[in-house]
Structure formats: C-alpha cells, structure tokens
C-alpha cells in the first residue's frame, strides 16, 4: 500500500494576534505548524502502512521553511517527503495549487492512495484535496470518517455527511479527504525525530516538473483577491453578574426577556 499525503504548513492560529492599529495579523514570532487537520491524514496513513506494509510519503508546496513540516511528518512515522518550491509557484490559488500537487504526484507515480486533511485552517477552502483527485482523475471521497476495509483493489469508507454516514466503496487508486473523527494523531518519537533530522528532503522546482508557466502561481490562478477587510465582531452585550440567589434569578429573568424580545424561539 503506497500512500502519498499532501500537507500544508500554516500559522499556529491559536496565537494569532491582530495589530490594533493596522488591523492586520502580526506574523512576527508566529510559529508555523503542520495544518492540524492534516495530522489526521498522516496518522491514518501511518496506521495503514503498519497494517498493510508499503510506504507513506508526504509532499508540500511552500517556501524553503516548509521543509520543517515535512520533517515533523517523518518524525511521526512517514518514510520521506518532497518539497515543491520556487517563486514561480507563489500566489497560487486552489486551482494552481491542486495542479502543481497533482503534477508532483503524477511524477512520483506508484501510489494506491492519496490522503489529505479536510481543509487547511488558514485558507479554510477544502478545495485542494478534491482538486488533486480531479486532476488525476481519481475516485474521491471527502469527509472520510472511518476506513472500514481495504484490500489491494478496493477501499470501503464511511463519509460524514449532514444527516449521517454514507458508506462508499471506491476502487484504488483513490483520494480521501479525512475528518478529525478518523484517528487520534500520535506524537513524534525521539527515534522518529532523529531519523527526520537525517532525512534529506528533495526540493522539486519547476525545472524538475516542467509545467507550463501559464498554469503556475498567480498566472495560473483564476481567482484574484481584490480586497481584505478586518471584521469587528465585538458586540457591546449586556453582562450580568450572578453570584447570589437574587442576582442569579435576576440574570435568568433578563436572559429569558432577551430571548423573548428578540423573538428567537
């Protein structure tokens, strides 16, 4: 079972601080991490390898510093990684990103399964996983919450949808995007970290991939960001203190009044 997992490096958003004057995100000192939702894909990949043999490779497109994300994945138990890197890829939207990652996977060849996180926590589109499947003409299951069965030809999965779980049978090779429910990501081991340190991550530029410039980066991206706003969601709500019997009853009364006045039920 040869598995490829495209991942993304994202800012560690729990520490995101906004610059009060400019309204922009303060990037300085913000740590970059593996997209938290990709960890579930990595964990599933490693589990499937443990059970069925084969290899797990991670790939990412990003700046040279994104090598760190690949090494973290290797420390968890992935075998090796490829960093797709180059200024011609800068400014890619989901179309161009899917194109480059799909082209990378095509060149790598020899795979049975592609696993991705459901979406990245920064861009939050969830479009690149399905996009890669589309470019490679792979069968696709999104929101995969469980792998029910896997053999050399087929995979049976459960897919979390609005009103329940769909059970799908897909031929291999296929691409699954996974949700948190599918696994509990392991931590890197010390031995894993040592191995990751020694692993050399090949950098693939467009000289290696030989893709048409018109399909890359901003040139290859149909969409354009034309404006960024910083919404202020702070509301000046009424806050009641409830620290004794009277104030508890009073605040409950006020809450019911609030619900009734706004006709919320």
């Amino acid at each position, binding site marked *: 079972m040869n598995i490829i997992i495209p991942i993304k490096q994202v800012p560690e958003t729990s520490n995101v601080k906004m610059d009060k004057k400019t309204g922009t995100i303060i990037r300085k000192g913000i740590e970059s991490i593996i997209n938290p939702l990709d960890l579930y894909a990595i964990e599933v990949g490693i589990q499937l390898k443990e059970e069925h043999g084969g290899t797990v490779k991670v790939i990412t497109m990003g700046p040279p510093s994104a090598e760190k994300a690949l090494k973290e994945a290797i420390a968890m138990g992935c075998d090796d990684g490829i960093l797709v890197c180059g200024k011609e890829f800068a400014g890619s939207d989901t179309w161009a990103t899917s194109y480059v990652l799909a082209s990378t996977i095509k060149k790598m060849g020899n795979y049975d399964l592609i696993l991705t996180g459901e979406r990245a926590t920064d861009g939050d*589109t969830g479009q690149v996983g399905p996009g890669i499947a589309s470019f490679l003409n792979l*069968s696709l299951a999104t929101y995969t919450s469980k792998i029910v069965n896997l053999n050399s030809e087929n995979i049976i999965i459960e897919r979390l949808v609005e009103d329940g779980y*769909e059970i799908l049978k897909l031929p291999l090779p296929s691409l699954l995007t996974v949700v948190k429910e599918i696994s509990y990501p392991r931590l890197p081991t010390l031995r894993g970290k040592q191995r990751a340190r020694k692993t050399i991550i090949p950098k693939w530029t467009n000289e290696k991939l030989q893709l048409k410039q018109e399909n890359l980066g901003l040139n290859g991206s149909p969409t354009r960001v034309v404006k960024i706003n910083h919404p202020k969601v702070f509301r000046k709500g009424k806050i009641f203190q409830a620290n004794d019997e009277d104030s508890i009853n009073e605040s*409950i009364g006020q809450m*019911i009044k609030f619900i009734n006045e706004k006709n919320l039920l």
Partner: protein
Amino acid sequence: MNCQGVWTIAEADQGKIRDVSFELLTRGRKLADKLRTELVSVLMSNHIESNNIQELIFRGADKIYLVSDSKLKHFIVENYANVLEDLIKKYRPEIIIAAATTSGRTLMPYLAIKIKAGLTADCTDLDIEKETRNLLQTRPAIGGNILATIKTPKYRPQMSTVRPKSTKPAPIDRNRTGEIINVPLKPELIDGRVKRIGFRKNKQEDANIQNVNIVIAGGRGLKKKDNFSLIKELSQHLGGAVGASRDAVDRSWISYPHQVGLSGKTVIPKLYVAIGISGAIQHLAGMKTADNIIAINNDPEAPIFKVANFGIVGDLFEILPKLNERLSKEECNDRK
C-alpha cells in the same frame, strides 16, 4: 466570452428538495437581476414530485434544468460533476452557486478543475461589479480574522459555494412562471467507479448543528461528561441542537459531529448559547457570525463575552438548573 445566466445547484434528499436550494435562489435572484439575466436552478436527482419542483420557480427560478434518473438518486461526485460539466458546455452560464454542504463542497472543486474555473469557498456575501459583470465574492479566512473579497476576471463560469442558513428562502409567489427543461441523462456520463453501499442515519439527538436556528453549546466548564445533560435539557427547552467546544469533544463528552470551531463546523444560527466555553479563537471562528450570542461563564475576562450580545458571569452549575426549571414552566414565548 458570451456566457449568460446565473445557475444555482439544487440539492435533494429522499425525493424532496432541500431548503438550502431555495436559499441559493435568493442569492441568485439578486445577482441575476443586477446582471439582467436569467436565474436557473439545476436539479440532479430522482423522483421529485412536480409541485416540489415547481416551488423552485415560485421562489425565484426562471428556468430549471432537471436531470432526473435513478442513477442520480444519491450524490456521487464523479457522476454529478460529469452531468453538470455537460450542461455547462452546452448552455454556458456566467455564474454557478452551490451550497457549502458536504456535497456542494465536493462537487464544486472537483468540477472547477475540469473546466478551469475560479471557485471561492464558503462565501458570506455575493455581489456584482457593474462595469465588468464580475462576481464579487466575500469570504472569511484565517479563522474569521479577515474577510477577503475575491473575483475571477478572466475565466467563466465564476463559481462559489455559500453557507447554508446564511440567507432565507424567498416567500412562495404562485404568480411566478418559469420553464422546466427535462434533460435526459446520457448514460456515458455515469462514471460507475464509486458505489454507495450503505447509509447510517444520525440518531435524533445528533441533529445537524448547521441546519438549525438555535445551538446550545457546552465546553470545558461542564467539568465532566454527565454534566452535558444540563446542555441537552436546555436545548430541549429552547428547541435547539447541541454543540460543543473542541475541549469537550477531545474529552469524549460528546461526538465530533457536534464540534463547533476551526477543526469542527461553522454555524450561523439565530441564537448561539455558549456555556462553560471561554471562547478560544478557534471556537470563535466557528460561531461568531451567529445572529445572537448568549454566553454563560464564570470568568468575566473570558473572550466569549466580547462577542456576546448577552452574558451572565456566574457558576453554570447554579444557573443552568434554575434556568431549566424556569423554562420548563413555559416562560418563553412562542414555544411549540
């Protein structure tokens, strides 16, 4: 480019059109009117009653492309994408809007690649740039910290997904007329690789939190699993669904489909009640655009109070039992 018309992708389930299909028509109607073009609803399904289909016209559609076939009974992305691609190549719409549901968010990216179209996920606002006829798509990103406006100047169609419940269906207008065009399914468009071999329906209590008007959510402040019963009781009194913070889900107090936030679901209910949830940025990302937010927390400094319209600082174990008791005596209006 000579593309014409605004299309919305209707969704159906078990022979009935889902409400989100009508919400999309509200969005589409505004755009089609600004562009002075037609509004089309595309319905791929099986066995939908004709008066249910007619409702798409009564709620804003000028035309319906109906592809009805038993092979389209269930959403299979490869089949739906092939059918839609075939329609797009024939009729050349300038805009396509789908719901940001599990099927919409699968179909649209799969299709956008094949036809090299720009696609913007999870939009909260759609408008038209008059001079260029470009679609202006606004969406939150970076955990809701920014709102980005995106357009697709050189490629058609322009594609978006929009969040369910972010608009209301237009009222039924029985005087509206429109055309229903039956499009026979071409057999070669059925891909056949993926088979849907079963379905497990949610239990009643696992109501979909994205499809309700009221969400009552609990967090770490509940201290243990058993205490979630307080949240469930309140949700029954208020007629809402139960949500949870990541902390509560990671402690296995409640299952993942209930999780609100960056690694869970985004909800936009009329009322969100956050109980024992401090309001970490990841949680706020999933609920801060709710119409109304009530917070109950013992920490007056908790960030959740900054987004709340109404807050109570106090011990939830003292407040909730009393609140539940009073609500059980029918103190809120319009309860059914």
